[in-house]
C-alpha cells in the first residue's frame, strides 16, 4: 500500500501538471517582458515568432523539451524570420532557476 502511494506521488510530481503548478507565473512574465520576447512572440497569437502555445504543443511529451528550450534561450541561435536568418535573443538573466522557470511557463501554456 505504502509502495503504491509512493508510486502515485512520484508520478504526480513528475507530471506536466505538477510542472505547471511549480511555475512562478509573474516572475516568468516579468523576465519575458524584460527580455523583449513579446516583440516577436505572443502567448497564443501569431507574430513573427511562434506563440508559446505552439511551442508548448511542439514539445508536448518530448523528453528533451527543457534542454532544447534552454539552449534556444541562452545561446543566441540563428532563426529564420521572413526567409532571413537572424540571431535569436537570449533571456536577460544568467540565473539558471529563472531561465528554467520561463521554460516551465512556456511549456505549461
Amino acid at each position, binding site marked *: 500500500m505504502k509502495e503504491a502511494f509512493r508510486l502515485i506521488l512520484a508520478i504526480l510530481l513528475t507530471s506536466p501538471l505538477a510542472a505547471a503548478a511549480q511555475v512562478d507565473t509573474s516572475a516568468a512574465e516579468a523576465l519575458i517582458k524584460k527580455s523583449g520576447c*513579446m*516583440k*516577436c512572440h*505572443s*502567448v*497564443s*497569437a*501569431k*507574430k*513573427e515568432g511562434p506563440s508559446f502555445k505552439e511551442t508548448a504543443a511542439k514539445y508536448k511529451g518530448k523528453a528533451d523539451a527543457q534542454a532544447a528550450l534552454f539552449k534556444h534561450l541562452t545561446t543566441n541561435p540563428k532563426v529564420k*524570420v*521572413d526567409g*532571413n536568418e*537572424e540571431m535569436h535573443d537570449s533571456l536577460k538573466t544568467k540565473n539558471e532557476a529563472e531561465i528554467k522557470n520561463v521554460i516551465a511557463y512556456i511549456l505549461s501554456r
Partner: protein
Amino acid sequence: MGWWSNLKQRCQTCSRVTLGAGLVIGVLAVSFVMLTAGAYGLAWTNTEEFCIGCHEMRDNVYAEFKGTIHDKNRSGVRAICANCHVPHEPVALIVRKMQASFEVWGHLTGKIDTKEKFAKHRYEMAVKEWTRMKKNGSQECRNCHHFEAMEAEKQTEKARARHAKAQAQGTPCIDCHFGIAHNEPDGPGPQELKIAP
C-alpha cells in the same frame, strides 16, 4: 407663416427688421449654447476620469495599463484611454461615440461586472477593437507614431527591418503591437483576423 404673424402680434411696436434680427440672434445664441455644451460633453467623455468611472474599466483594463510604457515613461508623455480608443477625426469620433452609447447597456445590465464575466468576454471585446484598429490602419497609434519621424538608426536591427516591411506593406501597427497596454486575450491575434475590405 402662422408663427411669424403670431410673433408680430406679440410685439406690435417692433419693426420687421428688429424682429428678424432678434430671431437670428436668438437662434445663434441657442445654437452656440448647444454646440458648446455638446463639445464640453464630448470632451468630458474623453477624459481618463470618465473612462474609469465604471469599475469594469478601472479594475480590469485600466489596472493592466498602469505601469506600461504608455502610462509611465522617461519623458512623461502619457496616452490616456481616448488617445488610443477614440478616433480624432470628427465623423469617426461621433460614430464611435454613438457605438459607445450602446455599450452603456452592457454596463447597466452587468454584462462584464465581475472579473470572471470580464475574462469571459475579453476576447470578443479585443477582437472588436483590433478590427477597428485594423480597418483604420491603426490611425490612433499613428496620430503620435510616424514612420517618417522614426530615427531608424536608433532602433534595433530587428525593429528596423520589421518597421520597413510594415511601412512597405501598409501593415497596421496593431498586427504586431497588441497586448502592450492590456493583457493579451487567449485566442488568435490581429494577424489572424480576416477583415473584409
